[in-house]
């Protein structure tokens, strides 16, 4: 909290946002080079102000994300090289090349997992909240998800439980206005998602996604309340700058709309504000940008061209080490072959 009110914190948040932007640009590059594992790559460009939320969390707090979760994880301390390796499906990646872009996790940093099922990771923070409540550990757990998950019933079941049991939990909706090709007004019977959260007994807040400091302000209050057993909901109003995934050119929205949306750029806004408030000048900010570029260039070259994981690794980690693993098909067939008394 002290740090959050310091002068340097907003600059650090800018730097965090820039690192996300730079990283995501290189994920796009990875795809173009044909080095990503598949094309299910969802870039969080335009949504970097989520840093306002992640920055309000403490070490030891945990979280889950949706499929568009690179930014959240980077902001919580991820090593971009290991992320990139995972996105490329390599063994040095966070998940040994098993998960890929949509399934990155890191127990050490409190990342309980990115999820490719819309809404799938949301109830996990309720469970984490039970753990922290029962242990009185003082931790909180935050679910990050998109506006699309506002249509998944499990969100409301989870909100209700969090409120009912006074859990240290926050639901953070990154509303980028679209679920694939569907603008949010074509999927919601009523807009203003905070109203839904309040109806279930949560504290609701809303923040503009081009204003990272506004996000942070709202987030700090919610985090304090959540630690106190009063769970919350935060809607961050952002814009998805590019297509849903790498193949999508967004033909369902107009160039004008896109231009307008992209003008709501949290990085631009932050630069202007930092300069105006005298917290950093253009040269400082350029240095930050350059450092991010260097860091992410390195990440892009890390292990992405390494050999693929060895085939036998596919049988690892289905179950815990020391317990029976799945029998490879070849073994089954070999047994049939060799045991037959012919």
């Amino acid at each position, binding site marked *: 909290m002290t740090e959050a009110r310091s002068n340097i914190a907003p600059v650090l948040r800018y730097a965090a946002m820039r690192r996300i932007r730079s990283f995501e640009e290189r994920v796009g590059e990875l795809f173009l080079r044909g080095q990503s594992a598949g094309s299910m790559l969802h870039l969080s460009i335009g949504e970097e102000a989520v840093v306002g939320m992640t920055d309000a969390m403490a070490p030891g707090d945990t979280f889950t994300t949706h499929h568009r979760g690179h930014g959240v994880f980077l902001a919580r301390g991820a090593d971009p090289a290991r992320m990139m390796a995972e996105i490329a499906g390599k063994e040095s990646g966070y998940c040994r*090349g098993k998960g890929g872009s949509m399934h990155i996790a890191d127990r050490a940093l409190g990342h309980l997992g990115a999820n490719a099922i819309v809404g799938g990771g949301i109830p996990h923070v309720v469970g984490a909240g039970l753990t922290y409540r029962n242990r009185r550990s003082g931790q909180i757990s935050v679910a990050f998800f998109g506006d699309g998950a506002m249509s998944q019933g499990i969100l409301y079941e989870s909100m209700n439980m969090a409120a009912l049991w006074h859990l240290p939990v926050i639901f953070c909706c990154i509303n980028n206005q679209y679920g694939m090709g569907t603008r949010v007004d074509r999927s919601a019977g009523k807009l203003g998602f905070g109203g839904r959260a309040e109806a279930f007994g949560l504290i609701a807040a809303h923040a503009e996604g081009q204003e990272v400091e506004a996000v942070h302000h709202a987030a700090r209050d919610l985090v304090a309340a959540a630690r106190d057993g009063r769970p919350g909901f935060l809607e961050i109003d952002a814009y998805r700058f590019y297509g849903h995934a790498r193949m999508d050119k967004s033909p369902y929205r107009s160039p004008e709309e896109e231009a307008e949306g992209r003008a709501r750029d949290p990085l631009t806004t932050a630069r202007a504000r930092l300069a105006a408030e005298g917290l950093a000048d253009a040269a400082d900010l350029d240095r930050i940008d350059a450092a991010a570029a260097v860091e992410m260039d390195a990440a892009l070259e890390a292990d992405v061209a390494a050999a693929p994981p060895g085939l036998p690794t596919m049988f690892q980690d289905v179950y815990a080490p020391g317990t029976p693993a799945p029998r490879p*098909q070849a073994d089954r067939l070999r047994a049939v072959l060799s045991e037959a008394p012919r």
Partner: protein
Amino acid sequence: MTETTYREAIRQALIDAMQTDPDIILLGEEVGLYGGAYGVTKGLIDMFGAERVIDAPISEPAIVGAAVGAAMTGLRPVAELMYVDFAGLVMDQLANQAAKSRYMFGGQIGVPMVLRTQGGTGRSAAAQHSQSLEAWVMHVPGLRLVMPGTVNDAYHLLRAALTQPDPVVFIEHKGLYTLKGDLDPAVPDAPWGVPLVRREGADLTILTYSRMLQESLAAAEALAARGVEAEVIDLRCLNPLDETAIFASVRRTGRALVVTEAAVTGSVASEIAARVGEACFDWLEEPVLRLGGEDIPIPVAPALERGSIPDAALIAETALWLVRREAPAWA
């Protein structure tokens, strides 16, 4: 008879059916403006309007539930589940509602709906977007299950599904959308509900469906080059499954290999193997073998993904062993 793709065949089936039957509606995520996650419904919202091609919120349980209600009241909905991997969200509406309504209500209320979805590997889409879950569906009395493996079947089986009085789960394969083949809208490959011998052969019977049909046909080619003639049977409609042709073939060849892409334990292949083992026991020269996906979640790394499911080479090697007792390299 024109050459087209599996994707286009399905799209054309929807168009032709919707033009014939005004009660057909499409209901699903991104089926309208976006044209479907795999482009199957492209342009249909312009042709049929937003009342018949309905973009739904990301609410799979309610999508299937709404389709059930629409079917009960006179429409013929085609609900789309973007990935069969999301079946876990809708199995209640599918298995407890769609499948059981006619029965529980003593025959009064049928649910003539089609659930279109797609599954399978091939796009490095990882564990939650690459599964083959047809075994869950096959286990549910009251559902029909169809999995086309060719372009012409994609068209005709969907048209047939859209005339059925009961719920049909129609599972496409993401790896087949670009498959090219001949489509004759007037002539189906075979009637609904009947397996089809796609290739004749005397040495063994390969029983399969969906994308593994294509792999099996390729394997049969390779086998022919080595002097082994495989009979390849496309199961097509897994429920109801008319076993006549299956049993006749296995009783002739004396050898059966069942191939699926799904995790082999508890798979459709196990069911077919059990049935063949029961009914053809006295004719079998060798055990009925199953080939399927490994019993693991699908890994994202392309090499692991590929390595976790059967391909033409594995099918051919296994078949060779079955026929000639030539042990493959891995054995």
